């Protein structure tokens, strides 16, 4: 290794990093802090309160915790994160990775290619695909149900929360699947062969060999998926949060308050609460990641 010589002086270093940091400071860091301040005002999107907002102290924050729409959205978000994030993306991703491990059939290619396509196709397009897929008259799902004598079901109207959970599971499982597949690659084949020779059951192999190996990967994945799912806005494109707020997850509620009802001040107070929840998850995630590097 070469000695860490001074290729750049202190002044040059500063000059090199300042353009990037100026943009990050203004458009990424400042807004996060400013949200807290805006939450203390009655800023609105239009009208007199847009130009001259008044300082209203903590009243917005007090209101958040008395707001039945906030609790409704929080409850729906929890179900959504648990259903589509933990059970859906992490659970199904793990199952797929296990089923695909050391499998070479064309079926594996079909699953991997479809799941990855679902994951990388842009938001508006996947949303439209699901509007078509779930359509009560023409949709492929109802056509399929008809073949076995069921339906038709108006999914987005009668089962909106279930629909967006199913949608978001389909949308994001590929990430977990790829992460777990990569982790399984590091598993020495001899372990499973030995277990086979000893006649271990599938459950024992999973519990005693695979689970300990994947423990840290699962933790990382759960934290990331929770953080992402908590902030995802795409269900808005499917249901708009309705009917009558029954699929209104927190991001949709923030959108409605801030940009449909124009209450930027109150919207900022809710956003601050969400950003603090994000902060908690990000801190745990970075801590876990740091510890993994040391091991």
């Amino acid at each position, binding site marked *: 290794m070469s000695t860490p010589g001074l290729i750049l002086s202190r002044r040059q270093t500063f000059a090199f990093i300042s353009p*990037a940091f100026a943009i990050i400071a203004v458009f990424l860091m400042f807004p996060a802090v400013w949200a807290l301040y805006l939450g203390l005002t009655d800023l609105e999107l239009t009208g007199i309160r847009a130009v001259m907002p008044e300082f209203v102290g903590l009243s917005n924050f007090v209101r958040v915790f008395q707001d039945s729409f906030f609790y409704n959205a929080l409850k729906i978000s929890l179900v959504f994160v648990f259903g589509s994030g933990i059970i859906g993306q992490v659970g199904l991703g793990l199952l797929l990775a296990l089923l695909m491990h050391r499998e070479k059939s064309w079926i594996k290619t079909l699953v991997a290619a479809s799941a990855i396509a679902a994951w990388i196709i842009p938001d508006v397009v996947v949303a439209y695909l699901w509007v078509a897929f779930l359509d009560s008259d023409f949709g492929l799902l109802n056509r399929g149900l008809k073949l076995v004598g069921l339906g038709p079901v108006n999914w987005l109207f009668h089962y909106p929360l279930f629909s967006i959970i199913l949608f978001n599971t389909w949308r994001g499982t590929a990430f977990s699947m790829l992460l777990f597949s990569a982790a399984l690659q590091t598993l020495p084949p001899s372990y499973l062969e030995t277990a086979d020779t000893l006649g271990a059951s599938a459950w024992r192999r999973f519990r005693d060999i695979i689970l300990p190996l994947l423990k840290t990967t699962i933790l990382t994945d759960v934290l990331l998926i929770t953080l992402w799912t908590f902030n995802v806005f795409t269900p808005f494109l499917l249901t708009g949060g309705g009917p009558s707020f029954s699929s209104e997850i927190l991001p949709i509620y923030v959108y409605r308050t801030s940009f449909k009802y124009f209450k930027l001040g109150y919207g900022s107070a809710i956003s601050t609460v969400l950003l603090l929840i994000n902060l908690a998850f990000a801190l745990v995630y*970075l801590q876990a990641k740091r510890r993994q590097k040391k091991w």
Partner: protein
Amino acid sequence: MVSRFRWPKLFLLLLLGVGFFLPLLWLLLTPFAAEPTLAVKLPSLSLKSFSEVWQNRTAVLAFKNSIILSLGAMALVLGFGSLAAYALSRSRFAGKDTLLYLLLLFSSIVTGVAAMVPIYALNQKLLLIDTLLGVILVFTAGFLPTAVFILKDFVDGIPRAYEEAALVDGSSSLALFRYVAFPLARPGLAVIAVLTFVSTWANFLVPFVLLRSSEKVPIAVAIYQFFTEVGIPRIGVISAYSLLYTAPVLAVYFWISRRYGFGFFGGLKG
């Protein structure tokens, strides 16, 4: 695993694979249908939906806007990101680790609608609402932290000997960056360039919140407006447009995963 489980395992895998595949089918078939509907059926082939896209003024304008946004964000992230990554790799100063940690922390927290509320208010103050520049700056700030991290890893892997030799020959630091480090980091720069391009290209939320006039919106918002518009069903245009819009994203993913594995894509996606 064990052979006695192979058939039930493959059957379950097939079932899940079909589940993942079916919603995609519409995108593959409908753009080519002579009479496009929400139903999936083997179409009587026609390319008329594609020609309708090119005759639609909004669609063509939005295509141009998407290119401007994506190229703009790409240029800024690449230029400023590589300068910063180079400096962070080649120098030591107090608080460097804290700075990197804060970058990572903020880039994972400031996401989604919650971040869009203060960003909207900020752009309004700076007179950047409803401007493409405002959207480009927000994307640039969002992608720069990840880009700096990935690029710093690449630069860390380049031996210092070349630069030290050039330094002895009397080159300036900007020349070191421009003629020595920059060319050597080219593979990393290529990845960052295409990832920034497609992430901007695919994003819906940021332009949806920050742009108001219909002649400024990118493809993502134009497609949304097509399908929320009441009146004439535009299913043909939407499906063909969606396919044209999606194709570059799929191509880039394919190229990157071939060369570098999937990890890179995850980094910039959220």
